[in-house]
Each structure stands twice: as structure tokens, then as C-alpha cells.
């Protein structure tokens, strides 16, 4: 096990996408960007990412294809690419998902949940250990939004994630929108679940937009952040500090003023929560 502690302060961040390049370059107060590692070439960095590094922002590579929750051990070439991106941007850490994205040679095109069983936990722990050995920096693990749940769960999500973080020594990428989505869609209380996540192991926090369609909350990253998620941001920062919080926007890109307003709304929620924590 490779237990790592958080030594960085990231501040407020945003997911870098080519379509947001100009707006993010002009955004005031950003401390870091997250780049999808698979979107970065083998040698060069996108000009906007290189420029952000030049302005002193930190960059965190975010993997989407390791399939750490899959039956196969993580692919060496994918790990080498993630490690290479981390080294090229001087990243303090990298992040990936508690999910599987392929099975029996077929790609899902998305992040699918794993069964919350001790068997899945063992396989995940082995895969995470392989990844940690191949990466030059600490690894943070993100729990995913799951529209479908496996039958036969042996523990709830907060317990499962807590066990994984404890056994592997990895850090937690807490996604408050995923937490909100799962609580909404599977009928439990988001705040009650939040307090049982390993909050002392947070590397940084994700927030993204979503919408309800046919009664189901979809974590689209193509819509504004809903008030319920901002309330969770405030609750989290009332409970504890976190090294960073990042807005994910992947589609239906808004005008710059809307993006800035979203970032400000998140910062305001962090401030309200932090003020409450300091007072009490």
C-alpha cells in the first residue's frame, strides 16, 4: 500500500477543453486546470495548457480509460501515457475513476459502475496498486455517477469508497455532482452519505452540471450546476477544507459570462461553507 498525503493547495479550477480555452485564459482567480489525459498527444501539450503552466497554474491529468474497476489489469501503455502527461505538466497528482469502461474487448464509451462487493474491492485494490507503481505522482480516485446499480451490493457507496481508499492509500477525488446524482436516482440522502466518505483523504473536489430527464438526474456536464449540488459544496466546506474544487463542463459550452458566473457561484458556496466552519 502506498499511502500518500496531500501536500498541495490547488484552489479553484476548471476542466480544460479546447472550446473553453479563451474563457479559461481570461478567468480570474483560477489555481489549476484538469486535462483529460487521453486527449493529450504523445509529445506536445495543447497551446492553452502550456500557456496556463506559464501563468503559474497547476495542471492535473485526469484519466478516463484505465478501467481500474475492470477484470483486466490496467494496460501498461495507457499507464505510461498517463505518467508521461503527469511528468510533462509537472502535476502534483493524477486522477482516475472507480469504474470499468471495457469488458471482453468491447468499449462502453463511458464510465460504468462496479459491483459494491468485497470481490470487486479486491480486484480494484490490485489494479490500483499496479497503477500506483507505474505513476510518478499520487493517484486520486473518483466515484462515478451510476444510473444502474449492480444487484447484491454488500455495502453502500460511501463505505465502498472508504474501504478502497483505506486499503490502497490512494486519495479521494470527491465528485459532489456524482454524489448528488446517485442519491437522487437511488433514493438516499446525499448529505448523510457525504459525511461518511473519507473526507480527510480529499485530493480535490469535482462539480459539474446536470439535468433531470424523465425523473432521472443525468450528470451531463452540459448544463448549469444545480442548486442542490451547490448546497453540497457549502455543506462540505462547512465540514472540512479541501485542497481544490473544479468545475467540469464538457458540452453545450456556455457564453463566457455564464461560465464566469458558474465559477463565482461555486466560490461563493465554498466561502459560505468555510465561514460557517470557522465560526463553529
Amino acid at each position, binding site marked *: 500500500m502506498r499511502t500518500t498525503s496531500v501536500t498541495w493547495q490547488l484552489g479553484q479550477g476548471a476542466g480544460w477543453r479546447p472550446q473553453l480555452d479563451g474563457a479559461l485564459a481570461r478567468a480570474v482567480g483560477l489555481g489549476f486546470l484538469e486535462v483529460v489525459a487521453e486527449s493529450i498527444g504523445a509529445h506536445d501539450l495543447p497551446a492553452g495548457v502550456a500557456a496556463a503552466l506559464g501563468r503559474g497554474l497547476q495542471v492535473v491529468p485526469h484519466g478516463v480509460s484505465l478501467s481500474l474497476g*475492470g*477484470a*483486466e489489469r490496467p494496460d501498461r501503455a495507457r499507464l505510461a501515457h498517463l505518467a508521461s502527461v503527469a511528468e510533462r505538466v509537472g502535476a502534483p497528482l493524477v486522477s482516475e475513476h472507480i469504474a*470499468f469502461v*471495457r*469488458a*471482453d*474487448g*468491447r*468499449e*462502453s*464509451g*463511458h464510465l*460504468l459502475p462496479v*459491483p459494491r462487493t468485497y*470481490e*470487486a474491492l*479486491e*480486484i480494484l485494490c*490490485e489494479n490500483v496498486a499496479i497503477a500506483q507503481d507505474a505513476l510518478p505522482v499520487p493517484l486520486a480516485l473518483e466515484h462515478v455517477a*451510476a*444510473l*444502474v*446499480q*449492480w*444487484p*447484491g451490493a454488500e455495502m453502500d457507496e460511501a463505505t465502498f469508497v472508504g474501504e478502497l481508499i483505506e486499503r490502497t492509500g490512494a486519495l479521494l477525488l470527491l465528485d459532489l455532482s456524482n454524489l448528488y446524482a446517485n442519491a437522487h*436516482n437511488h433514493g438516499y440522502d446525499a448529505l448523510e452519505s457525504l459525511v461518511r466518505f473519507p473526507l480527510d483523504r480529499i485530493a480535490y473536489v469535482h462539480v459539474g452540471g446536470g439535468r433531470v430527464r*424523465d425523473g*432521472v438526474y*443525468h450528470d451531463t456536464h452540459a448544463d448549469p450546476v444545480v442548486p442542490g449540488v451547490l448546497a453540497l459544496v457549502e455543506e462540505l466546506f462547512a465540514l472540512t477544507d479541501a485542497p481544490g474544487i473544479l468545475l467540469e463542463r464538457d*458540452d453545450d459550452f456556455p457564453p463566457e459570462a455564464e461560465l464566469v458566473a458558474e465559477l463565482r457561484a461555486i466560490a461563493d458556496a465554498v466561502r459560505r461553507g468555510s465561514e460557517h466552519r470557522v465560526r463553529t
Partner: protein
Amino acid sequence: MSAPDREGYGARQAQLLDALLRGGDYPAGFVAAQADAAGRSLRRKRARAVAQAWPALALHLGGTFDARFDAFARAVDAPASGDPLRDGLAFARSLGHDAPLGDDARAELLLARAALCRRGVWVRAARLRRPYARLLVVARVPWLGVVHRSFACLRVASPR
């Protein structure tokens, strides 16, 4: 402690993934409504990427795009690379005579075929009608990449 059963674990994941991609026949114990939503979400994400890579095709199909692509996605896996240009090419070819393509979509199809051609010289042409009659020539040439040019089709009056 015995090693976890990766083979059985992988088989169960493969069974779920197949059911989600095909849109039915879920393994025992899954809630069908949840699995339906998850499968639709996978296919919608794939459709969105193809629509962005193939704007003229998406515009041509208009309101029928979503249903047509959903039917295609249930039957045909996305390419292993996930490349939406290649995925859209397979989709466009699957339409056949069912949805004859307009000028812009045909031009887009030629450009995509050229971009996806990996070896040698590739040249094709299409006669387009709007906004004026012209011949679009698309070529993929090693070192140069994809080049295209259109030529106005002159109408020569036949002698009386």
C-alpha cells in the same frame, strides 16, 4: 486469501455491457428501468459525438437522427478507438437508400472517407447540385493529407 475470480467478474461485466449496448435482456437482478436509462445514456453520448463530427449528416437527418442512430448503435458497436468520425462513417453507410444524402452530407461523407484513408492515394468525386451544379473532387495524398476542389459544371447548349 484466495485470488479473486477475475474471469467470472469479467464475464458478468461483459454480460451487463452487452445488454446495455443492445438495450435489453439484462442479467438477473438488475432494475430494467435503471438499465434502460443507463443504456440510453451510453447511446446518446455516442450519438452526440457523431453528430458533432458529422454536422451535415445530423442536419440532413434532422429530427430522425436520434432514433436512426439509436437503432444503429443497438446493432453495431462503436469502433474500438471511439473515433466519432469512423463511427459516423459506419452509420452513414448503414443508411443506404433509406435516407438518400443531400449535397452537404455527401460532401462530408467524401471528406471523411478521405480523412480515414490510411494508405496510398485516394481520389473520389461527387456531382453536387446546390447552390449551383458543380463537381467536388476530394483526394487524400501521402504527405499532403486531404485536399479538395470543386469545379463549376458548365452547361453547353446543344446545337439545334
